[in-house]
């Protein structure tokens, strides 16, 4: 009864519930904004502005030339890495160098190759890493060694050894070539940087006393065993590398520090601007020269007309291309005036431009010359 009399409350309640439900549905997934496109502001600059920008600092100190370094060499630990691949096959050899140290001397004498062999074969990888610590000039050998890891390096270090032992390593392989190349590079190296001393000492020791393994367990076994080792762990993936006759190259040059050089700017760039007084002097100078070249006898009266001629100069003051008249006269009577002005420009072809204006060539290379009869006659 009351519902029929006053259905308002029930009705409005229903309406609100429906509305809320609709809102919940429609609001459940708010639409995000579309990603705004980023705009990149672009400035147009003239060639002259570009020259200004590129000028750089001409007085910057030139840094002593050193090989270009793009990357700092990583600091590598000197500890040899444990053998990875073949060590598994060799049951008894945990590749810790310290234990073996007493052995290898004996082994070399006996030339029982196996265990040291593998440690040697596996170890080379760390080597090249440690090498880059040497300063730049010494870098080429490491690069070579990186290319052909196992034999090369060792060959260098242990050079003398092969002599006593007949079977010595590298002959069958292209090693020899690279070795030959590598050696000359290494030997002449005149500067003894402190870092290198240790290495050199090591090498010395290796050369002098092959039996003392203490210092370089890694380098140790190399001497005798290289040949067998290479044959054993013949890696098909390496064939191309072994066969390549390319000279050792820098893959990426590394140095002890990055080379940072101030930009010296391009030689043709000009940053200097003419001062107003210089401008005025140049104007007067050119105007004077044109005045001398210009002979125009005519009635300059009835109409004010000043021919404006666009001229382009080369560095030495000669014309480039044809001078062009910017405002051809409508009155045929004045045409002779314009013609004479053009003629004057052509006659003055190599203008004399003092040397002091040379740096500002960019600014005066294109000019508009005005031949005002009242001024110039």
């Amino acid at each position, binding site marked *: 009864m009351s519902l029929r009399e006053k259905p*308002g*409350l029930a*009705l*409005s309640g229903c309406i609100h519930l429906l509305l809320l439900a609709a809102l919940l549905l429609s609001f*459940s997934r*708010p639409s*995000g904004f579309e990603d705004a496109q980023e705009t990149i502001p672009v400035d147009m600059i003239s060639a002259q502005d570009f020259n200004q920008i590129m000028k750089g600092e001409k007085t910057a100190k030139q840094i002593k030339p050193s090989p270009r370094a793009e990357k700092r060499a990583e600091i590598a630990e000197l500890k040899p890495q444990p053998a990875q691949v073949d060590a598994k096959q060799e049951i008894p050899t945990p590749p810790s160098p310290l234990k073996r140290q007493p052995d290898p001397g004996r082994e070399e004498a006996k030339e029982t190759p196996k265990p040291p062999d593998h440690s040697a074969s596996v170890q080379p990888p760390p080597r090249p890493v440690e090498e880059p610590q040497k300063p730049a000039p010494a870098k080429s050998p490491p690069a070579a060694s990186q290319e052909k890891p196992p034999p090369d390096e060792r060959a260098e270090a242990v050079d003398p050894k092969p002599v006593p032992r007949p079977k010595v390593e590298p002959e069958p392989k292209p090693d020899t070539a690279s070795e030959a190349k590598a050696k000359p590079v290494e030997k002449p190296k005149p500067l003894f940087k402190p870092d290198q001393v240790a290495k050199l000492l090591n090498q010395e020791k290796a050369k002098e006393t092959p039996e003392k393994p203490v210092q370089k367990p890694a380098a140790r076994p190399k001497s005798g065993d290289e040949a067998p080792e290479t044959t054993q762990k013949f890696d098909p993936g390496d064939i191309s590398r072994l066969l390549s006759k390319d000279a050792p190259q820098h893959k990426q040059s590394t140095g002890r520090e990055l080379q940072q050089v101030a930009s010296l700017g391009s030689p043709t760039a000009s940053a200097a601007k003419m001062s107003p007084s210089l401008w005025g002097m140049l104007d007067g100078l050119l105007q004077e020269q044109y005045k001398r070249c210009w002979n125009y006898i005519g009635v300059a009266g009835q109409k004010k007309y000043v021919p404006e001629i666009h001229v382009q100069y080369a560095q030495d003051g000669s014309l480039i291309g044809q001078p062009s008249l910017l405002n051809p006269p409508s009155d045929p009577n004045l045409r002779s005036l314009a013609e004479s002005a053009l003629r004057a420009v052509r006659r003055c072809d190599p203008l004399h431009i003092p040397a002091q204006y040379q740096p500002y060539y960019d600014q005066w290379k294109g000019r508009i010359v005005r031949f005002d009869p009242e001024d110039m006659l």
Partner: protein
Amino acid sequence: MNPAEIAAAATPLPGAEVSLLSMFWSAHLVVKMVMIGLLCASVWCWAIIINKVILLSRTQRAMAQFEDVFWSGASLDELYATLSSRPTSGMASLFVAAMREWRRTVQGASSSFMGLQARIEKVLDVAIAREVEKLESNLLVLATVASASPFIGLFGTVWGIMSSFRSIAASRNTSLAVVAPGIAEALFATAIGLFAAIPALIAYNKLQGDVAKKQAQLEAFADEFSSILSRQIDQRAAHDQAA
């Protein structure tokens, strides 16, 4: 996985964060109460609006019907007999009130017509006032809601923004993603306030006009009827004097 899929997978989370319900639940208690109050006000407003519209249209229909019958020339006594037996509204109730007063006087022993005219007019005035009051009741609620609910919503918004600023200050993070949900839920309060206020305002003006129109009709009818009755009274008085 392309970036579109990643974006699609990532959107549900913020989407859920800004949905209407979660906006409500994450609001401050004051803001919540403001929202609920405003929602109730809106429900009430619409209930009043619907009731009033129905009442007015019903009244309109009844008045038209009554006027048809009244001016059809039928006997007023018969009309009174039919109408007085059931509850009436609008003009009919006016008619019944005046007729009752008239009959009481005519059938009474004194049968003095001296003050009858004045009494009938008083009765008609009272009946009009009662009818108008019936039509007008609750319209003031609409007016109140229309004027107050924007302020209440604004209060909720200010409170919500205040608390979200306080949480910004506490978290020391001013990125828009942190600020936005709080401000959105605060603005939600104002939205509800406006949602309640706008229909209330419009309906109040409309209904107020309708009620005024009905009142004018009632007064016109009352004047006509009282003039008819006064003519009757004068005739009766002349008749009595002649007799």
